[in-house]
């Protein structure tokens, strides 16, 4: 009997699910990113690419909830805020506490996961539009609470002088390179874990719920537990992203965790390919680089052009102010011309292989 294994169990990290070409391409990107700070010494470039790290982590987490399990969550930035504030409150002069950064990555992930369950439990019966609206509300409530409880959170001023991570006694400081490699390492680990999950019992249960919740129940899937796992695991990624974000910036305030962040992350996963990890990576990368690198740089070039032609209008252009206009235009174009995203699921390719093998 011929066995078309879903993935070859012989390969580690679930790599068996991908073709050799895909693995090589992925390896090339990994190597390129690993050496990037060595080649481009410009700190602002390294910092911008490092900031893509938190966008990617958020995209990974949201993809678990929206992409795999099919639960449309609109207030995802709230979990990012919860992760960031958990770290900032326990590792800053705010309360004079200075918890260990590495420990806090774990703790913030757990705290965000717990809030994921808190949001998930009352919304279990909701789907689609209704769930989106409730989670939208949650996303609005959290920054409001951060403003109201100013005794603990610093209110609109936020929390300053957040501790920077230390490794073997060396502080990360304000140099972006250590943060870059930290994000790099965390993202590699997260991708491996998520890829494993995607091709496992739990990952299939998530997708079964997305495809047909009633049929999933009939297959013996405890949909309550499985959805709560999706909420908590998805939120944990935001918690981790929040810790590193707060540590790199050393200053956080509620207005960094508002609705536009949730929309940006949602856009990233829709642009890349909902539910497909390589797609999420591409989508998150594109959105983050546009946001942190391309738009500010392009603004600078336009200013330079304005200097040359003595045009005041060009000299004062700030493309970053139009980023949501640009993101919106991208979303419309993607929906019109490639609704499945830039890098759709590998299943389509797998079909072609099955035909070849059968021939």
């Amino acid at each position, binding site marked *: 009997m011929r066995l078309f294994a879903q993935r070859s169990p012989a390969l580690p990290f679930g790599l068996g699910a991908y073709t050799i070409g895909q693995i090589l391409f992925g390896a090339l990107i990994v190597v390129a990113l690993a050496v990037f700070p060595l080649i481009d010494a410009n700190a602002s470039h390294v910092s911008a690419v490092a900031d893509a790290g938190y966008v990617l982590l958020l995209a990974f987490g949201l993809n678990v909830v929206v992409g795999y399990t099919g639960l449309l969550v609109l207030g995802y930035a709230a979990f990012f805020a919860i992760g960031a504030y958990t770290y900032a409150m326990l590792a800053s002069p705010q309360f004079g506490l200075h918890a260990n950064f590495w420990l806090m990555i774990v703790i913030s992930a757990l705290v965000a996961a717990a809030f994921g369950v808190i949001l998930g439990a009352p919304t279990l019966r909701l789907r689609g539009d209704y769930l989106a609206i409730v989670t939208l509300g949650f996303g609005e409530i959290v920054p409001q609470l951060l403003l109201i409880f100013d005794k603990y959170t610093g209110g609109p001023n936020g929390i300053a002088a957040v501790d920077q991570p230390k490794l073997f006694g060396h502080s990360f400081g304000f140099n972006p390179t250590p943060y870059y490699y930290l994000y790099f390492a965390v993202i590699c680990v997260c991708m491996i874990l998520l890829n494993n999950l995607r091709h496992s019992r739990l990952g299939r249960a998530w997708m079964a719920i997305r495809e047909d919740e009633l049929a999933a129940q*009939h*297959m*013996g899937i405890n949909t309550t537990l499985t959805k709560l796992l999706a909420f908590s*695991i998805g939120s944990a990624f935001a918690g981790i992203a929040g810790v590193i974000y707060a540590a790199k910036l050393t200053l956080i305030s509620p207005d960094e965790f508002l609705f536009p962040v949730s929309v940006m992350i949602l856009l990233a996963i829709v642009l890349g390919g909902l539910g497909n990890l390589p797609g999420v990576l591409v989508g998150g990368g594109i959105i983050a680089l546009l946001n942190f690198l391309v738009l500010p740089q392009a603004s600078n070039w336009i200013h330079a052009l304005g200097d040359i032609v003595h045009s005041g209008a060009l000299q004062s252009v700030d493309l970053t102010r139009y980023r949501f206009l640009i993101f919106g235009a991208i979303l419309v174009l993607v929906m019109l011309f490639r609704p499945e995203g830039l890098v759709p699921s590998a299943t389509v390719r797998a079909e072609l292989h099955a035909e070849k093998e059968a021939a």
Partner: protein
Amino acid sequence: MALLSLDAVTKSFGGLTAVKNLTFEVQPGAIVSLIGPNGAGKSTVFNLVTGIYRPTSGSIVFDGRSIGGFKTNAVAEAGIMRTFQNIRLFAYMTVLENVLVGRHVRMHAKPWDDALHSPYERREERATTQQAMELLEWIGIARFAREWARNLPYGMQRRLEIARALVSEPKLLLLDEPAAGTNPAEKADLMKLVQSIRERGVTVLLIEHDMKLVMGISDYVHVLDYGEEIAHGKPDEVRHDPRVIEAYLGKGA
């Protein structure tokens, strides 16, 4: 002892009684059919057995356990699997993945096993994949294992639904109008398939409108009309029962 027994089961929705005082048994190893005109309450019976509805009164005992009011996933775990009248596959998952989901209740990898791809998870995954492929081979759609379920032709989708329901080795299989929309050749294949499912040791309870199929394969037939049982017996007995003829054709002038 009966594998499944319903005792005086009633289900009302507000003022409407969908199933009234229904009592019947399914013996292990049998093929039992539920027939009756549209709206007779057949699907409600399936929904009661699978825990979608809780009986208003009466008891449902499966394999020695009272399952009335069980959650749907617990019913599946107890060993009852089903197919649906309108095919409900996981459309954007592969054929193989659909069958693997069917095996969910018999797998024991914990979330951390899944995330870490632990040796236990690896072993279980390999064994399950092999089982799933053997079943797909048996049911004749193994060559489509890596296709999306939605890409299969209709008849194959019906077979995939049955494979998905069988892979967890249930004791009882509920088939909801398996012959709906199939052509005569496919119907003949389906009859053979249902019989070979029984040979695998799985008891079958089916809802079906196609009388030729029902009469051809059933050991026992229960006829419902307006939520009540109006006749039961071997196919030949039921076929000539005047109440059944009346329910289906209306009273003669």
